[in-house]
């Protein structure tokens, strides 16, 4: 038999790079590296009974109302979002022991009430400021108590100690419906 051995023909691989590049570009374009982030909240449990009437000293409550025009009413007077953080911090810690601010940080309650016509963006902005006030206080507390930054790496025991001193209490009242958007 004529077993003539042909030299093995080499496959031309130069187009391999092109194919790989094509796939690469496809994945580059479709990739989104953003991590899902957001403000985490814990909703209060639902109960059918109307809440009990607990007597709370008025000085311990920091009421924030947002109306359908996205205006703020903080403790009965009109306010701006910019000053909310500082006012909340002062209210919670009460450094100069004023009569009308919270007795102790762990007695402070922040009450947030919005309208059904409030813009969601404004609501998040307000919520963000109130949360920022607490985060800043926790950070300060952490630095004075432990000399460490308040972060995810802080041991849970230390976090609990800080949160026992300055608990995050934000109560949301049932929304009013003066400015409901027409369907």
């Amino acid at each position, binding site marked *: 038999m004529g077993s003539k051995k042909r030299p093995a023909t080499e496959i031309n*691989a130069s187009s391999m790079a092109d194919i790989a590049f094509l796939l690469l570009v496809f994945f*580059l374009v479709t990739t989104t*590296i953003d991590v899902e982030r957001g403000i*985490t909240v814990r909703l209060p449990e639902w109960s059918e009974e109307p809440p009990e009437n607990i007597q709370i000293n008025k000085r311990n409550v920091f009421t924030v109302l947002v109306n359908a025009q996205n205006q703020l009413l903080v403790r009965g007077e009109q306010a*701006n979002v910019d000053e909310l953080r500082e006012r909340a911090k002062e209210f919670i810690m009460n450094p100069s022991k004023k009569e009308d601010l919270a007795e102790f940080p762990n007695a402070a309650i922040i009450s947030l009430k919005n309208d059904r016509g409030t813009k*969601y963006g404004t609501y998040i*902005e307000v*919520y963000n400021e109130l949360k920022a006030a607490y985060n800043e206080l926790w950070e300060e507390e952490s630095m004075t108590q432990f000399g460490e930054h308040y972060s995810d790496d802080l041991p849970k025991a230390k976090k609990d100690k800080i949160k026992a001193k300055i608990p995050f209490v934000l109560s949301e009242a049932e*929304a009013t419906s003066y400015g409901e958007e027409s369907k």
Partner: protein
Amino acid sequence: MGKFKKKRGDTTPAISTASLPDIVFILLFFFMVITKMRETDLKVKVQVPQATELEKLEQKSLVHFIYIGRPMERFQSIYGTAPRIQLDDSFKTVEDIPLFVENHKQTVQPALRNRITSSLRVDGDITMGIVQDVKTKLRRIGQLKVNYAARRGVVKEKAD
């Protein structure tokens, strides 16, 4: 001595491109691994608001998304412009949320079910009414862990 004389000068040697596919493949695999395809096709316009106090959502399998926003332009002739809820791939109402949450719950191990988070991806420009309804519904069915999706950044909007 002329034996070892190097030949040079007349032509520049061609750069070997044989390793190019390898390099490209490495990049390709990298992107293939980190890519997460967008699994839902958005039917509502969602531009989440900006905030600074953000937390990361840890485990993707424990999160379900509730989109709220105005219908995209191509759906406005059917669904109007009022804010709507989108679950998975279709327009839904508040009444569909319990079943949606329950379906997601079934896919999660019982031990981890209390860590399920509802991520509310809500457009910054809509009003709170519909969000309030969704929140009330979530409270009623005991799904209390909620995350308001937001982007990093500070926006100073004046009340108008």
